[in-house]
């Protein structure tokens, strides 16, 4: 019911490649991939000055609230959101019901170009996440099945 999402090295590289490609092709400032629960999965581009953890959490909150609105209106979801700022804009889209693709761009790009490139990236990502979920459910055990109670106690020992 509440099995963890597990991202292995190989798949992480693949989704990062998709984000890098989107970042380049859409002439975006930054691209993020966020779990619907607010965890940052991958990012690409100019992220050094951004608080990526907060960005991930707020994006997920935003998607959750918008999903709630959609349900009230009898819609399944609003798959795309766009926020326009004075300099920077943010394009948010849902990928396969589970992850959120965020593109931040400025005047060097345009909404049309971003939408076009996002569509392609969403297809690629949806396929990758199918594999990721399948792998997680098949492999079941994680690094955590090997840890001991002492490991957990030690973590809190000096807290």
């Amino acid at each position, binding site marked *: *019911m*509440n*099995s*963890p*999402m*597990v*991202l*292995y*090295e190989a798949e*992480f*590289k693949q989704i990062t490649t998709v984000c890098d490609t989107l970042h380049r092709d859409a002439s975006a400032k930054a691209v993020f991939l966020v*779990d*619907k*629960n*607010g*965890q940052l*999965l991958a990012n690409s581009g100019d992220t050094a000055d951004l*608080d990526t*953890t*907060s960005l991930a*959490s*707020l994006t997920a*909150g935003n998607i*959750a*609230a918008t*999903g*709630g609105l959609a349900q009230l209106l009898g819609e399944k979801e609003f798959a795309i959101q766009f926020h326009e700022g004075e300099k920077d804009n943010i394009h948010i889209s849902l990928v396969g019901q589970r992850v959120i693709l965020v593109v931040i761009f400025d005047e060097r790009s345009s909404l049309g170009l971003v939408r076009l490139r996002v569509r392609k990236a969403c297809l690629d990502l949806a396929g990758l996440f199918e594999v990721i979920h399948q792998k997680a459910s098949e492999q*079941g*055990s*994680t*690094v*955590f*099945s*090997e*840890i001991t*109670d002492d*490991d*957990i106690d030690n*973590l*809190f020992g000096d*807290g």
Partner: protein
Amino acid sequence: MSFINYSSREINCKIVYYGPGLCGKTTNLQYIYAKTNPEAKGKMISLETETERTLFFDFLPLSLGEIRGFKTRFHLYTVPGQVFYDASRKLILKGVDGVVFVADSQAERMDANLESLENLRTNLKEQGYELDNLPYVVQYNKRDLPNAVDLDYLKRYLNPTNVPDYEGVATTGVGVFDTLKAVAKQVLIELKRGR
């Protein structure tokens, strides 16, 4: 739902602080934020109304250290306690790994505690969870107030399943870290069990 990233060697988990309006959920997070080393915490976000009541959620990312080379990070969320924000509360429970119920010890808030606890069970069920199957800790907050009711009474009504519980005075930090540690530990034990 926890997230394990083998590439960045990180484990991320989500803990939600639940409870009636003005019980001290945000105060718990503020205390944790104030007392945590800068390198172990991210920015605390509070989406609140002009009167400083939580509108959507508070959010605090926290690093607890490493287990077997994996950084353990906990994302702490509070829900808005006021009854009419129920839609928001449901959203924040999505993907939860552990729950803290913050109860208000004042006699006149007993009904609000019970209502909020019932609301927690209902909203978890809607998301496909059972409170009894989740890592779960209760904190009896505001123990310093003169109108705080007996601990036995609180335990009987608010903790019938006898989960770990702590007395708290969130404004001064009493019980705050004990509560956090207890729920975080339970979350990691659940992960170890492979749930």
